[in-house]
């Protein structure tokens, strides 16, 4: 059974994703991507992952995409147009490949939906989460009890990002 909201959002996401890939200018790609992420946040919300949905909207659609758009403007790239050559054998091959990957994965997922020996579900049903104070509380609880090493490590990643900006984007000091 498919929830209609999910279905609609899924269709929207799919369309926007296609737009991202195939639209003419980078800026419209970027905007399609932002829209898609927002729609995706909707899906997350519907799925009960409220914290992630918020994060998706704030970090992705907010921060990251602003960075993208900013870069596009900065590097003055918007005058460059979509360069996909649809007649090219590479394009055909790429589409075929993508289609086969999609088909393969979908086949696997569909087959999976009828898998009898799947893993036993955990205890964190939506009700249970609601009972302990909602999704944000639950996720943070899980994160900081079980996954704090990862959390710490992410900070290192961000440090590398800073270093990279220092190294690459900084104007040369003469």
């Amino acid at each position, binding site marked *: *059974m498919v929830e209609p909201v*999910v*279905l609609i959002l*899924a269709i929207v996401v*799919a369309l926007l*994703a*296609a737009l*991202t*890939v195939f639209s003419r200018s*980078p800026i419209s790609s970027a905007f399609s*991507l932002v829209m*898609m*992420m927002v729609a*995706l946040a909707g*899906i*997350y919300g519907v*799925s*009960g*992952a409220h*914290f*992630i949905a918020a*994060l*998706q909207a704030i970090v992705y659609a907010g921060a*990251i995409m602003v*960075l*993208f758009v900013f*870069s*596009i403007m900065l*590097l003055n*790239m918007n005058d460059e147009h979509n*360069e996909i050559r649809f007649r090219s054998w590479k394009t055909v091959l*790429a589409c075929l490949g*993508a289609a086969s*990957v*999609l088909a393969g*994965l*979908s086949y696997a*997922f*569909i087959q999976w*939906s009828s898998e009898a020996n799947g*893993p036993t*579900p*955990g*205890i964190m049903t939506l009700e249970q989460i609601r009972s302990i104070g909602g999704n944000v509380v*639950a*996720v943070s609880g*899980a*994160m900081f009890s*079980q*996954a704090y090493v*990862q*959390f710490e490590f*992410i900070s290192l*990643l961000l440090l*590398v990002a800073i270093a*990279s*900006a220092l*190294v*690459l*984007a900084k104007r040369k000091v003469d």
Partner: protein
Amino acid sequence: MNSGTILHILSAYLFSMGLLALILRRNTIVMLMGIELMLNAVNLSFVTFARELSQLNGQVQVFFIITIAAAESAVGLSILINVYRNFGSIKTDRTTVLRS
């Protein structure tokens, strides 16, 4: 077919679209977006699986992945700027000096 499966297929679709962007587009920034698409596919997959499995673990991972995606795009954009400085363009067909 339930909504979980639909979402899985959607994630597979996003994943393929990301790949397609990487292959078809010559504009590096759009290629970066392709990578973001793929990471989003992963996120969707994690969230959906987390719901199916009634676990929180998946959602926790999504948090990390989003952060990594941020860091990655930061690095990616610095690389882009570096390329732009060297070549005056970020289209892949203009940024080739490496040929065998």
